[in-house]
């Protein structure tokens, strides 16, 4: 269902050339550039075009943090809604996809931080101006470390616990359904879930101190 590790590379030949930083982000090569005129005349259509283009990738990325399809889709939807409602497309200096990805990561982080440590940043996500606060290189790397350690922690769960956890969180199934499907009691489902969450919490805890700093700068 989710096996992002150890995928064969699609086209190894084209992948080994060094990236050309400046030119590759030039306006003429930027597919978003064609949208520029549409943003002025019909921002809603332009927004929907962006939505179609990046929705799947953004949902997939959010789900690596929150491990729930439903939450991931809510997050991405919320990011697009704010992007449109606050007319952020007018003010964003970096590329739209960079902004969207940053916003999705920010909200996903905020969600799991609330869920796993019962503490939020203290700042309303909506109020944080992501346009002014572009994540620093170390913050970017910390986000990456975070979803990778979550993935690792889930892969290391005992098989049955992992199954229950993924059915419940990722697939959004009810405890009753899971119990029926795996022929176990609801009580056992609950036990597996609390075990999974406590193992997840332990795995992620050392990272809070690092990523937490992200939260503190906002105060």
């Amino acid at each position, binding site marked *: 269902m989710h096996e992002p590790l150890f995928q064969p590379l699609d086209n190894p030949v084209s992948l080994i050339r060094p990236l050309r930083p400046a030119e590759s982000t030039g306006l003429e090569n930027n597919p978003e550039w064609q949208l520029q005129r549409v943003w002025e005349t019909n921002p809603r259509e332009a927004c929907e075009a962006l939505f179609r283009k990046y929705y799947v990738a953004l949902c997939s990325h959010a789900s690596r943090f929150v491990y729930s399809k439903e939450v991931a889709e809510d997050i991405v939807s919320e990011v697009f809604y704010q992007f449109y409602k606050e007319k952020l497309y007018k003010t964003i200096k970096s590329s739209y996809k960079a902004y969207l990805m940053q916003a999705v990561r920010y909200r996903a982080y905020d969600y799991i931080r609330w869920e796993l440590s019962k503490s939020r940043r203290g700042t309303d996500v909506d109020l944080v101006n992501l346009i002014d606060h572009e994540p620093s290189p170390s913050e970017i*790397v910390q986000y990456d470390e975070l979803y990778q350690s979550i993935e690792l922690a889930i892969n290391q769960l005992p098989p049955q616990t992992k199954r229950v956890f993924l059915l419940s969180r990722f697939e959004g199934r009810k405890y009753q359904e899971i119990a029926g499907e795996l022929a176990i009691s609801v009580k056992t489902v609950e036990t597996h879930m609390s075990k999974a969450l406590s193992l997840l919490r332990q795995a992620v805890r050392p990272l809070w101190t690092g990523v937490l700093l992200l939260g503190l700068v906002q105060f």
Partner: protein
Amino acid sequence: MNQVTKALLLDYHAGRVTSLQRKLIEDWLQDAHNRSTYYETLIEWETTHPQYVADETAGLDRFRRRLTGTQPTTSAVPQDEDPLVKPFFTRSWASWLAAASMSVVLLTSWLFRTSILYKTYTTHSGQIQTLVLPDSSRVVLNANSVLRLSRFGWLSLGAQRDVFLTGEAEFNVTHLRDHRRFVVHTDRQLDIEVIGTKFVVLSRQRATRVVLIRGKVKLHYQPVQQASKTLTMTPGQKVTLNERKQALELTTSTRPNDFSVWKNRQYVFDDTPLTEIGQMIQDDFGLKVEIKESSLAVRQVSGTYNVANVDELLSALEELLSIRVTRQRDRVTFSQHNN
């Protein structure tokens, strides 16, 4: 920086790099262009190696409904409040929430106890405000001043009317049938008990002073480690607190109304030294005033000046004393003309 290839980035996203390579990428991210490449590659990686494939059509539908507002809540989750709070931890969440909200209430009431217990009126630089208190007493509050009064018990039976002043204000106190006391508290152990009616109080860094225009007030002064002193003022009297001597100095003013002309945005100077004028400007307009030469500080000014605009006052002083007055934003400098 050329060592960072697309292949390396893709490996990195999949969590298949060494810590050295990770550090290399972190350094590479210093460049804004590279950060843009990074997000581009991340999206590409998520497109080619998705954790799962979200239903784009359903998602877009939901998004459209949200935009047109036909469906205020598009999912089981109320979007406007907190889109991310799920009933996942229902039991612990509920009790946690109850405890948290209780402690939030307690904490807020402690933090804001002053604003709960007192009603506060504040004026900014250059702002003069007329207040009507609940007992219909009138107060004209000069600039940069704060008047606080207790919310509770102010008009409850038998309580005295306490107000706390920092800054400058003219009081016109209404006498109540039950002869309830009206007391103005200053920051300097000096309280003014009103027997009836109109007076001006200055309670600032530069001086603490009471001028009685009409009626009768009783001053209560509590010097440190001394018996408290009481003094009853009659109209036209001016009392200034001498903090060094811990004493009240009483003089008679023939024109007590001069001490409240600020409410008409006027200053009346009567052989007033420039240092005091500088302090008045500092207090009322929030400007930093500096007097360059000590010879200048003792120059005196008399007359009535309109101070609706502080710059007008400054240029009037410049002309009158033939000195140089320069203003740079919040800083005003008085200096001799010939330098």
